[in-house]
């Protein structure tokens, strides 16, 4: 199976790989996994007092498409509000990266991860 150029670009130069302090009250952490392939993904966001995502980091153990999907999401969500980020759809990710049908689940994983990170942040804030 051939990866698209955008997937290869994100795979070879992943953006925003890293870790934030999960205990920090301004950080939301999303942990998701795909049992079928054993992929695990951690996506974290740092949110300003006004509810805007200032920074995002990820770490993904999985295939190129899973890494590219999470890398792309961290680029996209910077500057977004929490609500905007929670509205991201896997189809947007899959379209941008030209993922083939067998790799659509990787974009679903990334969508689930950002939603989980937003939910975690909101829970922390008691909102």
């Amino acid at each position, binding site marked *: 199976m051939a990866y698209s150029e955008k997937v290869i670009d994100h795979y070879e130069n992943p953006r925003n790989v890293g870790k934030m302090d999960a205990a920090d009250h301004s950080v939301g952490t999303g942990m998701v*996994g795909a049992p079928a392939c*054993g992929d*695990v993904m951690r996506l974290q966001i740092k949110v300003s007092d006004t509810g805007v995502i200032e920074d995002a980091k990820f770490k993904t153990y999985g295939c190129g498409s899973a890494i590219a999907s999470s890398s792309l999401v961290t680029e996209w969500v910077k500057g977004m509000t929490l609500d905007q980020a929670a509205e991201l759809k896997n189809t947007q990710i899959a379209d941008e990266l030209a993922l083939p049908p067998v790799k659509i689940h990787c974009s679903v994983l990334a969508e689930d991860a950002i939603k989980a990170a937003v939910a975690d942040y909101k829970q922390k804030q008691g909102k």
Partner: protein
Amino acid sequence: MDIKQNFFEFYGLPEAFDIDLGQLSRRHLELQKKLHPDRYAHLSDQERRLSAQYTAYLNEGYATLRSSLLRAQYLLKLRGIDTHNESSTVMDPLFLMQQMELRERVEEAPQHADPEAELAALAEDVDKMMAPLQAEFCNEILAPEETSVNAAAVAVRKMQFLDKLRREIERLEDELY
């Protein structure tokens, strides 16, 4: 022999997780002999095709039953749950966090002062986590209730993550030596 039978029936084994692997190997040899192509050389094309079909089914069955993970997945599949092809991502967050930490340790193992010992320790950790999951699966799959089948599926999903981890450790071990 009938390829409409499931693999357990085909091999004359009880439909359970805890099977006698020695018995499986012996049955496999017996069935292989029965199906040896030389014995069918004088037969019609159709009969030979049938024999080839049986052999393919036999080999798939052997590979499936011999591996504890594939056997567990197969038992669930017989009960209508396909954990191998599903895309659900709802997993216990604590389990995922632990997986993440283990994957990080595996990734950093080649830079460890003693990579060989670190990888061996990791493999042992994975095996220690695998054993109770297998025991849990073994019990749950015997019960017919839906809640038990679902609990068995949860155990298999975790086993799938651990299997991936185990293969990753083995890949690094191969690279080291």
